[in-house]
């Protein structure tokens, strides 16, 4: 029997903590809860969770401090709970090493999708063949097939698709894309990335009005939204 993934919830609000715990337990997760960053770090060390779900604004050590401490020793996925309008906080949390965020007030399906995407991450990170609904990516053969038709991509587009698909469900920042695809080449701007991603989307998306694979993540970069098959 597969062990249940363990999630550490760190939030100073009793209501959120309790409700989240109930929801996650119902959906098949083991849950441990902490009230602030210091208690969270203690539980992280003793319980070794598979994922951390943390608020940002907390008494004593806040969410940023917790991310910093966890990232000093571990690569465990961290999803932060941010408030709307806290874009600066989101970017700061991602820069410190958080993997994703959900904006309060969020819905359960949204949260579960983010949690599952992060838990899946390590399993697809090393593959050369990736399968998504109506989309297969074979990096060895440099072949992309969408809805039965082969999509011809430029090397740059393929590199971007590779990077985004490997991190499916997670926001990938402009800086990360420039560092990986352009090897950090100077003069590559966010707009350059936007142009290439725009071209990739036009080739990949069967319906430009309803994107199924790649969407923009405001001020951060892009997110591959399809779930691997």
């Amino acid at each position, binding site marked *: 029997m597969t062990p249940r993934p363990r999630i550490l919830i760190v939030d100073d*609000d009793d*209501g*959120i903590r309790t*409700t*989240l715990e*109930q*929801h996650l337990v*119902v959906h098949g997760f083991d849950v441990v809860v902490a009230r602030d960053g210091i208690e969270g770090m203690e539980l992280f060390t003793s319980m070794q969770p598979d994922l951390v779900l943390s*608020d940002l*604004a907390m008494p004593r050590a806040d969410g940023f401090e917790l991310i910093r401490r966890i990232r000093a020793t571990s690569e465990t996925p961290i999803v932060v*709970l941010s*408030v*709307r*309008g*806290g*874009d600066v906080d989101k970017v700061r949390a991602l820069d410190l090493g958080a993997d994703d965020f959900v904006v*309060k*007030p*969020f*819905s*359960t399906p*949204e949260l579960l999708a983010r949690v599952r995407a992060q838990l899946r991450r390590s399993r697809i990170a090393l593959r050369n063949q990736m399968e998504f609904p109506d989309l297969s990516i074979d990096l060895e053969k*440099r072949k992309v097939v969408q809805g039965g038709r082969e999509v*011809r*991509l*430029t*090397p*740059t*587009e*393929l590199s971007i698709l590779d990077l985004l698909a490997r991190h499916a469900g997670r926001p990938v920042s402009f800086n990360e894309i420039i560092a990986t695809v352009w090897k950090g080449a100077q003069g590559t*701007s*966010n*707009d*350059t990335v*936007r*142009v*290439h991603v*725009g*071209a990739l*989307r036009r080739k990949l998306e069967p319906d*430009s*009005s*309803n*994107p199924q694979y790649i*969407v*923009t993540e*405001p*001020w951060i970069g892009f997110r591959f939204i399809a779930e691997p098959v």
Partner: protein
Amino acid sequence: MRNIGRAVAAQLIVFAVTYGALRLRTNAATAGFAFLITILGIAVMTDLATALISSVVATLCYNYFFFPPIGTFTIEEPANWAALISFFIASLVASRLVLRARTQAEHAEARRREVEALYALSIDLFTATNRVGALGEAATRALSNAGAHGGGLVLFGNGVYDQRVLSWSGPKGDEVEDLVGGAGRHKRTLEIPAPFGRDVYLPLNIGGKVVGVLAARGTTATLRALESAATLVALAVERERFLAESAHMQALREGDALKTSLLRAVSHDLSTPLTAVALQIERLRSIVDGPAAATVDEIAEHTGRLRRRIENLLAMARLEARNVVPRPEPTPAADLFRAVREHLPLVVRNRQIEVRVAADCPDVFVDPSLALEILANLIENAHQASPIETTIELCAYRHPLDPEQVRLEVSDRGPGLATGAAETSDTPRRGLGLEIARSLGNASGGNVTLANRTGGGAIARIDLPVAHLPAVDEVPA
């Protein structure tokens, strides 16, 4: 009168020296030296005219009493002529030199006093201008040091006749306002003769703009010293204005910081319980059915609307508090439509929503958060206004008349707008949501309008600027 007395006294001294020389029976050479020293002394003590008169008198006495024939103004021996002329020239030159040296010493002393006064003024002005009234006191002291018998500092508000008297001493007649205004308008120093010297009106010029006038009345100080004092006062006025602005900016910054922390706290304190409520509602929905489920849906819908209003108000408060400024970036319209549908799950669950983005529709240059709020408000309005079985359509295309704009549309099949309401006012059902959408639209550099739709219903249009992206070379695969 005083000068005449001094001249007479000088001649008496010459006569006394003559008398003394005669009594002592000195020879002509000794008497000549005695006269020369006397003339030098007189030159040191008196003015040029007295020294010159004394030289002439001494020469005559010298000739009369010491050159043969004694007792006459004639000279027998030509050598004595030479001696007498030499004496006269020597006494004149010596007098002149002594007087010039004394004048230079007096000028140097006057300049020293002026520099000291300016230094004291600069210390007064630049160490105490953050104290109320210090500028006026310093200007009064500067005028006093310049030997002025009155005057003061007048600053201009809106124009040269909007005058604020910062300090004034002595009488101030009606003509002063005109003189001060004249000096300010012409940006030139006015000098007017007065009983104790002259009245000087000095414009305080900062970067070509006259901020006030320093009036020195009844002064004998040099124009250069007065202009230097005026320059210092002008700098101090500018500095005081800068300090006041700086204090104002500091207060604004502190106010903004307070607003920021308040907004952050309010945002957190409202979002957190709402999240808990939303999660509990979802939990309730999973465990109840029948009529209770419908009630839960209703609670969820009202909660969702409350959440949206709070988000709207926070977004507007942030904009108003300058806590955030819109951060536009190139955004595909399809992503905005997708995000807004995710944002309104209850509307999407119960309603058919059709999305159409034209193939050639460029990205929009907009703050994505604001665009999301605008669209969410317009879609909620459309949802409330139209029957549940009808479709809400979301469209995006390049503006047909202005290629630099993208038009986003939210169309419904509701009752539309009352006659004459289009583009101007709103039906009550669309009130707050549309107002918020309009405010946020303006903040985004866009424009939100409402019109009746052909075939029934209403169309809300948002015109936003096109995003310009660079041309990039692509290498074919």
